[in-house]
């Protein structure tokens, strides 16, 4: 679409309140509108995939209350005057997988994240599916990485000691007449898109595979290579393996601004000192466009899209063994909604996520109607699913661009910058493959970089005593009695494992930090029994009082005072 034509359309819709202009890389919208829906609509109208230009949203929202981004309260100089070869901004799946890939090289690496743990945002708030890529049409970056990424997972999971299972995905349909159209899709995906595990299965096969699936399903697109992983455990594992190989990770570290000279980032200001990197990798998730702005290279915009997920009690896991979803013939927009039912790698069922546009990047509030929608869809997928089986729910925010594709690119105007932006589903699947290409790009940009001879791809994880045989478990306890003392009764986690997590190379000595690494608090009691016990172990380990143990961020101490102390 020509820019004039777009302006005409915007004009007639919004009475001149919005206008578009373009430059070499972007179509930029400015103006002011009364509703966020209108802003989204205007931006979506401006998307022009043929021109390969990105939509930049500079439209103001009338009477907007600006979102207050959570930033760490720490102020120190622990990173001051650091001169890393590469500074990675963002400790999600993208940032950590790239960091790990770069740690193969003889480089000084630093990753910073404003959060108190790795994977605190989208990388822990997603469904953990390793996608088959069957839902993607040819032509997008997403599509070009998805199958490659998927196939890397057996090795990645083994090297990083993260549980992973290929349990297969079924996208199911109720209509008999869908046979031919589906066959067409399957053949196209298989032979043109390269999703070579795709096949069409009929109701009988489907029922044999997973007997509790809705009886009305007639056909399903089956992808046996689909898998499940714990996305936060994987992110942490990438980070830990990178640290093991010499990289540095600094949490609670917020990038405040950057100094540039002649299109080169010279200094990155943070709450923990000034950093002088040779190269910056922007993997800041929903904040990628903000980081791009600081780097004078904002040629795209992120529009946050919230997804809510519900988790069921393990008692309900007999209902399904796979990843399944009901598909509607009605045309969806270019992003998926309502999600599926997934048997997670820890044997809970995961329901969702849905998809709701939100103005706010850190809008993690769940809402009742999201659970209503998820249940409405998933009870249609799996028979016998009950709302009372749900033990928890949470929301994450996708970092979508208006083009709904990844941005994997060198800086357009800034020279020592790489963007890894717009990463949303299937970003977890593509991460290892993207990391390979980005690290190559980085190495090229840095020039004259040697590969290490002593890179160790294997991460020593924490033994899961509840998965061991009795003999093995007995031997572990004999070596260290703490493995015999069960702290979390729902997930059967021992004190020894908790101490192992506290001794890891990216220790996060909080209730939530331990929860993500080992799962105490993720079971059916949701931490009501084990929270005080975990707090006590952390307190003993750190040599602090129980009241000073934090749930998550540094200002989330579980106690305000001790018994008898003055109010």
């Amino acid at each position, binding site marked *: 679409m020509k820019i004039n034509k777009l302006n005409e359309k915007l004009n007639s819709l919004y009475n001149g309140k919005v206008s578009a202009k373009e430059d070499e890389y972007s179509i930029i919208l400015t103006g002011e509108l009364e509703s966020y829906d209108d802003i989204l609509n205007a931006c979506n109208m401006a998307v022009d995939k043929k021109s390969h230009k990105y939509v930049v949203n500079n439209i103001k929202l009338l009477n907007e209350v600006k979102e207050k981004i*959570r930033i760490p309260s720490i102020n120190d100089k622990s990173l001051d005057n650091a001169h890393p070869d590469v500074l990675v901004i963002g400790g999600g799946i993208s940032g950590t997988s790239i960091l790990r890939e770069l740690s193969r090289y003889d480089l000084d690496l630093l990753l910073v994240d404003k959060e108190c743990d790795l994977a605190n945002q989208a990388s822990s708030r997603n469904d953990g599916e390793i996608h088959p890529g069957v839902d993607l049409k040819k032509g997008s970056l997403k599509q070009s990485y998805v199958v490659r990424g998927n196939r890397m997972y057996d090795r990645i999971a083994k090297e990083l000691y993260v549980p992973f299972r290929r349990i297969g995905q079924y996208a199911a349909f109720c209509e008999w007449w869908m046979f031919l159209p589906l066959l067409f899709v399957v053949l196209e995906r298989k032979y043109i898109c390269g999703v070579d595990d795709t096949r069409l299965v009929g109701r009988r096969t489907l029922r044999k595979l997973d007997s509790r699936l809705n009886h009305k399903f007639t056909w399903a697109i089956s992808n046996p290579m689909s898998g499940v992983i714990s996305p936060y455990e994987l992110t942490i594992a990438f980070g830990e393996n990178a640290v093991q190989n010499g990289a540095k990770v600094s949490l609670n570290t917020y990038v405040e601004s950057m100094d540039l000279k002649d299109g080169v980032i010279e200094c990155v200001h943070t709450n923990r000192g000034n950093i002088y990197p040779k190269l910056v990798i922007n993997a800041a998730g929903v904040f990628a466009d903000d980081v791009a702005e600081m780097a004078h290279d904002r040629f795209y915009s992120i529009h946050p899209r919230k997804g809510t997920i519900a988790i069921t009690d393990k*008692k309900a896991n007999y209902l399904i063994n796979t990843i399944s979803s009901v598909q509607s013939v009605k045309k969806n927009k270019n992003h998926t909604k309502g999600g599926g039912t997934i048997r997670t790698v820890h044997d809970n069922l995961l329901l969702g996520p849905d998809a709701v546009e939100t103005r706010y990047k*850190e809008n*993690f*509030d*769940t*809402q*009742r109607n999201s*659970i209503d929608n998820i249940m409405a869809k998933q009870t249609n997928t799996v028979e016998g699913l009950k709302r*009372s089986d*749900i*033990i*928890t*729910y*949470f*929301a994450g925010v996708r970092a979508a661009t208006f083009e709904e594709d990844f941005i994997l690119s060198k800086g357009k105007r800034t020279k020592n910058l790489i963007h890894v932006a717009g990463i949303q589903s299937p970003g977890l699947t593509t991460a290892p493959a993207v990391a390979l290409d980005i690290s190559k790009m980085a190495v090229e940009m840095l020039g004259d970089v040697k590969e290490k001879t002593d890179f160790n791809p294997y991460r020593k994880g924490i033994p899961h*005593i509840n998965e061991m045989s*009795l*003999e093995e*478990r*007995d031997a572990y*306890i*004999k070596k260290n*009695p*703490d493995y*015999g*003392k*069960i702290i979390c*009764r*729902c997930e*059967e986690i*021992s004190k020894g494992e908790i101490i192992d997590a506290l001794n890891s190379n990216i220790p996060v000595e909080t209730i939530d930090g331990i929860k993500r690494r080992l799962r105490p608090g993720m079971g*059916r*009691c*949701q*931490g*009501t*029994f084990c*929270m*005080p016990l975990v*707090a*006590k172990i952390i307190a003993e380990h750190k040599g602090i009082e*129980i*009241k000073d143990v*934090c*749930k*998550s*961020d540094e*200002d*989330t101490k*579980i*106690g*305000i*005072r*001790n*018994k*008898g*102390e003055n*109010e």
Partner: protein
Amino acid sequence: MNNYNTIVIGGGPAGLACAVKLHKNNVSCLIIEREQYLGGILKQCIHDGFGLQRFKEKLSGPEYAERFVNEVFELNIPFIVNAFVVSIEKKDGYTINVSTVEGIKTYTCENLVLATGCRERTSKQVEIHGSRPKGVYTAGAVQHLVNVDGVIPCKKCVILGSGDIGLIMARRLTLEGVKVEAVYEIMPNPSGLKRNIYQCLVDYDIPLYLSHTVKRTIGYPNLEAVEVMEVDEKLKPIEGTEKIIECDCLIVSVGLIPENELAGRIGVLSDARAKGARCDLDFETNVEHVYTCGNATHVNDLVDYVSESGEVVADAIRDRNDSERKLIDIEVKGRCAYLVPEMIDVNKKNNKRVMYFRSNKILKNATVTMKVDDKEILRRVYANLRPPEMERIVVDYPELSENSKVVFEIEEAK
């Protein structure tokens, strides 16, 4: 020696009473307790009022528990603590594998008593939404923090649910200098004992709002406020009644659920009404030689009954003969929330049997009957029946057969 006639899983008030009685009945037994010390949840229930029925005294939780614990010590009844049951295998009796700090230990027994207690329903189970901030706890978790760890978690709190633990914690926190803003209860009637409303809320001028619920939490990473709404008679929130209450802590006390995960793993069936393991009048479950007692069977409101059920089990094990079991279900009718036990083994002697029930509604002058083949064997009129208050009856059953029809009914006064 790792073989016992009976293994009691759980060293709380039910398990302890059962073990002490078993010992006195000359039945060898072992208590397996997953926590560091015996006593169960009573260890953290430091308020008084326990044991009024049994000891005619108002004891604190630890005092009540320690009466039994001290007997265990004195009688040298075997027990292991920090011991977590990993698996149970059924072969010539039961083989139980336990994780302890010394390694995996294996014990065998003929009879198994599941005295595993209950756990709390969480904020998620009553659909409180928000961002999972710090400051949202169940009443039991706060009780542990305050009474065991000596940690005061907040300045200003809101309590959701008028169950007894919530009421007790309202008073407890007030004494410790915490401002308790209010207690909200979704039902039109309080769910705790009346005397707790009086001595925990009225005494300290803590308001109780009935037909109100907490819809969502506000704030992240710390709780800053909660949104409260009024509900209609169908418990649906009424639009326009939203109120924001500032607080740094939300305590949910929204009920307890019998813990029967172990039971489920060995095939013990749960009751849809009482939520615990189904059992016959000996408190023996559908799985032979497996017994249930205390809050694992149903959530009691008095610990005295918890201990009593443990003792019923101990006597049943002593008197056990291995005649073939023939189980029939007791039919429950009318305004009954649940009746425990739920089944009768018609091959056992069933005279003078202790049973517990609750009504599902506040009733005045209600009639409670037990009929065998349409013949009334028990009839009692209650001036007041309230769902929060469990009632105990002793029923003398006549000789029964497989075809006997046993019906329990609570009738509202016309």
